[in-house]
């Protein structure tokens, strides 16, 4: 896996809601090499040492001309720092990192995103949905958090939304949508992709196994872990595998076959 450490110009940086931002940089090497599901490590404090570590963000989309975009939520010190960068400034970005989602025929997949976990799924849908249609299920806490719906719709994807408070779409959890999708769809797609909170992905995995059985459940999940390096040298980013081993999210992942993961 080839990756690059570039000092990239910020081409645009837009606040989409209270705490969600869309960042676009010019990084042709990364744009060219990137595959859906991969991520970058971004230095958010310039030359200063606080915050010290880079922050991992999924590649949200790549654009003609060598642009790469990230969709992120401000949750702490690092993402707050990042949000203060302005178009025209430069950012140190290392990527593309990690493995990627397997690309399958669009009519056979369902993409499932929870919260800011939708970020990498647009890129995935773009690569998959080219010439096809895809089913996309999105879950959010409330209307404020909803994002990327038009992105998926532009790709002619069938996009269903659930919000916990019912302020948009189905009132309830994304698993409700998924159960319905599985039950009312005899012509069931074979491949599922998810990204979002661990608990959500766990619930999705359980549901799919429950409904389809271990053998027919093909689920690729994208996991998060605290990362120092992003390139497999620090051993910090582990998640536990079903066989007891530790998997390194930055190198063995972030995309995993759900069967490999210990869903505790």
């Amino acid at each position, binding site marked *: 896996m*080839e990756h*690059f450490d570039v000092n990239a110009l910020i081409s645009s940086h837009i606040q989409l809601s209270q705490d969600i931002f869309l960042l676009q940089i010019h990084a042709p090497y990364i744009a060219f090499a990137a595959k859906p599901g991969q991520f970058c490590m971004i230095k958010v404090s310039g030359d200063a*040492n606080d915050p*010290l570590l880079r922050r991992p963000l999924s590649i949200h989309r790549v654009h003609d001309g060598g642009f790469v975009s990230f969709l992120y939520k401000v949750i702490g010190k690092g993402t707050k720092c990042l949000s203060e960068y302005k178009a025209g400034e430069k950012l140190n970005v*290392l990527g593309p990192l990690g493995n990627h989602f397997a690309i399958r025929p669009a009519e056979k997949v369902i993409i499932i995103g929870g919260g800011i976990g939708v970020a990498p799924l647009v890129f995935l849908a773009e690569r998959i949905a080219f010439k096809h249609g895809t089913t996309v299920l999105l879950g959010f806490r409330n209307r404020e958090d909803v994002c990327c719906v038009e992105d998926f719709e532009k790709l002619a994807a069938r996009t269903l939304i659930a919000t916990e408070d019912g302020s948009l779409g189905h009132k309830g959890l994304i698993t409700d949508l998924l159960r319905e999708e599985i039950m009312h769809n005899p012509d069931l797609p074979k491949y599922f992709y998810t990204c979002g909170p661990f608990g959500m992905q766990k619930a999705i995995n359980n549901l799919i196994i429950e409904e389809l059985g271990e053998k027919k459940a093909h689920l690729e999940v994208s996991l998060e872990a605290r990362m120092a390096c992003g390139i*497999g*040298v620090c*051993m910090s980013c582990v998640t536990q595998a079903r066989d007891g081993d*530790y998997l390194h999210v930055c190198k063995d992942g972030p995309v995993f076959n759900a069967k490999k993961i210990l869903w505790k």
Partner: protein
Amino acid sequence: MPDLSIKISSLYLKNPVILASGTCGYGIELKDLIDLNSLGGLCLKGISLKPRPGNPPPRIHETASGLLNSIGLENVGIDRFISEKLPLLKDYDTCIIANILGDSAQQYIELAQRLDAHHDQIKAIELNLSCPNVKCGGIAFGTDPKLISQIITGVKKVTNLPVIAKLSPNVQDIVPIATACEESGADAISLINTLLGTAIDIFRKKPVFNNIFAGLSGPAIKPVALRFVWQASHAVKIPIIGIGGISKWEDAIEFFMAGATAIQIGTANFFNPSASVQIIQGIKGFMRKMGYKKIEDMRI
């Protein structure tokens, strides 16, 4: 043109910049990002006799200008290290240093013996002496001059490779420990390993790490590391390899002036993978500008 090369007993390094153990994996992972041939050396991930799975997550926690880690010395073990990892570095022209760790003096000796057979590739052995000594109730080897002497003497008997004793900073006085290393035949001393620290997850009301304590590294610890290097280099004659919070060439110069013969870059590799290469350039530029011919000329 300044000469950046240095010698540590029989070990020749083209420049004094080494990547620190545990922060450059098995070396090969960095090949896309930096020219490994430009480095003085690579100190690989600490190796034990048996593979070690390491600690459960979370394994890291960020602090102000610092990083707490509790990796738990995860490594593939000496067998896979020799069969799978070492061969990948065959074609690189940099000095490979193996870092080893054990539960007992015997384990260090056995590891050194195994590595000695690969002296075509491995050019030195660094002993991580900050590990808890299982036989002595878990006290770190690094705090007891007698235990350290025992390990070094034993290791020196089974290998002709230069032996570097890597010391823990969690001691009151480094001088007796550094002296013990010198007297028992260590070819060099590297310091510091991480400072013992901790962090609490206030919303879960428990320590962030399962083991409660973790090791602090990064720019935050540089002033402390520099103090240890100063103290050790004024106490012994063997070369000192300075480690701790080095992220810029200016930091490296401070260590040389405090008495270090070489330096290792650790945590900086994480937030700036090019740090080592930039530091080599920076050292060169500074020496040229100030008229220093050799690294040792900078020593105060």
